[in-house]
């Protein structure tokens, strides 16, 4: 497939936003159970704002993918069948929840609404936090399923797609949370960095698993089944256009094998070992710089990862477009 930067930015940016929100609420939950110090209300509010900024940027990027962005509202109508439509509904719902979560923290509006039998007090931010967590995971599932549900694109048609979208979002969000905490002077930098390392490690396992799986895929369709002629040797001579068509632009990445391999190694280095080392450095002393650099490198790596994710998918329609004439 031809990797579109609008979609690359959409999926990576909202992943960061989701992960960052999950990090904030994880910290709040730990504090609720008395496992961590409670943070200032400003810490959560500013963190939510940062998460919103990433989600909003992703949303803006998505509009560049549309031919008719002014009609985008229509895309919320087919949630019964379309994962894309479901994503269109869940993303704003999640953004709204994050906004409310930040606002309630900012206003310090945390009256105890009820007390759980265990003696745990529940305030509005906790309820919003749980709702946001559910929506964050729902959004990961929607985004992943947009690709995983296309059975012809066999590189994507696997549960690993959804798992990896979730792990990458979580890893990059927690890495950003660690940098944010360090800059904000919070004592959570080490806590977030620890989780970021775990998630990055899990993402490594998931992505390597999908790379191995995809390397072993055998194409289901062939030129023989595409045109229905049983002969081992068929060569395309013309494809009905002289200067290419939508089909040659949308479904081919147009880069060499070497370039593809280079991008693969670039993301394997930038998403996993480099941030892991930097996170480990920040984990011990809570220094801001290595943690922020870790996020920067990992995010750039994720752009390469997403580019490769699209480029590697081989669409069966390509069988019909092998020679321009």
């Amino acid at each position, binding site marked *: *497939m031809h990797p579109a930067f609008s979609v690359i930015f959409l999926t990576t940016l909202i992943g960061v936003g989701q992960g960052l929100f999950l990090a904030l609420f994880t910290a709040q939950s730990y504090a609720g159970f008395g496992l961590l110090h409670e943070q200032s209300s400003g810490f959560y509010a500013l963190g939510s704002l940062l998460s919103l900024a990433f989600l909003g940027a992703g949303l803006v990027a998505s509009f560049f*993918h*549309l*031919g*008719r*962005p002014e*009609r*985008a509202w*229509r*895309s*919320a*109508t*087919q949630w019964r*069948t*379309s*994962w*894309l*439509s479901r994503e*269109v509904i869940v993303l704003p719902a999640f953004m709204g929840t994050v906004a409310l979560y930040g606002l309630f923290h900012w206003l310090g509006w945390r009256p105890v609404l009820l007390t759980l039998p265990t003696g745990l007090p529940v305030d509005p931010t906790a309820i919003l936090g749980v709702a946001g967590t559910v929506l964050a995971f729902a959004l990961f599932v929607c985004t992943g399923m*947009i690709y995983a*549900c*296309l*059975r*012809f*694109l066999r590189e994507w048609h696997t549960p690993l797609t959804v798992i990896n979208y979730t792990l990458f979002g979580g890893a990059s969000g927690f890495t950003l949370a660690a940098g944010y905490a360090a800059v904000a002077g919070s004592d959570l930098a080490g806590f977030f960095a620890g989780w970021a390392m775990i998630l990055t490690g899990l993402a490594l396992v998931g992505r390597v698993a999908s790379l191995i799986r995809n390397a072993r895929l055998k194409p*289901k*369709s062939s*030129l023989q*089944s*595409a*045109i*229905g*002629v049983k*002969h081992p*040797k*068929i*060569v*395309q*001579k*013309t*494809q*009905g*256009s*002289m*200067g*290419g*068509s*939508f*089909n040659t632009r*949308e*479904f081919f990445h147009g880069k060499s094998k070497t370039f593809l391999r280079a991008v693969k190694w670039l993301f394997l280095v930038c998403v996993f070992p480099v941030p892991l080392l930097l996170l480990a450095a920040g984990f011990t002393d809570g220094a801001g710089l290595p943690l922020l650099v870790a996020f920067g490198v990992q995010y750039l790596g994720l752009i390469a990862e997403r580019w490769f994710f699209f480029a590697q998918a081989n*669409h*069966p*329609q*390509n069988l*019909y*477009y092998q020679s321009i004439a």
Partner: protein
Amino acid sequence: MTQLALVIDLNVCVGCHACVTNCKEWNTSGPAGPMVDQNPYGKDPTGTFFNRVQTFEVGEFPNTETVHFPKSCLHCEDPPCVPVCPTGASYKRKEDGIVLVDYDKCIGCKYCSWACPYGVREFDEQQKVMKKCTLCVDRIYDPKMTEEERRPACVRACPTSARLFGDIHDPESEVSHAIREAGGYQLMAEWGTNPANHYLPRRKTKLRIRVDEIERADNPLKIDSQLPKPDTGAPALDDVTSW
């Protein structure tokens, strides 16, 4: 239930592109249009087409065969392109099985083109919406046209009658007969899309005849004559009798 479809006979198609031309002409002037071209006379001409004819060479020189292969939306009975559409712009009509795009609803997200394994949906660079074959839905029901004219533009244009049009759910229709009797098949059946359009394979008429069928008793080779066999040059019964 009706399922309209095309049946394309690869044995007859000569690759003249008349269907492509007439399709573009009819549809660029109709509600689907304009189907605009970019750089039509420049270096890399490109544009929106519903139908394209491709050419494949089968075999190895000198035993090669040229196959011309017209390709348009197959109006699948289980179209994977329809459920993925987030706006409902892509839909399959209940009454006749035609898969259509509502150009006023489409947001141009291109997701449906990813979900079609055949690469027959084309994004219009000017109107910024997805386009595809409509089976000339604006022709085939037009009461102002004669019965003969109420067929898709490509079918009307084909000089070799390689394109048949009809209801494949009606067992007695011309297309059903063709599929049944001439080995009609579906493209990439492995994906379970159940395309309505069918293709008829290349066919060669071969006379399978055994030697003993040539050398019959009443033929000049006289294989069954009395022994010793007369020479093939010797007069036969037909040469000596006059009745």
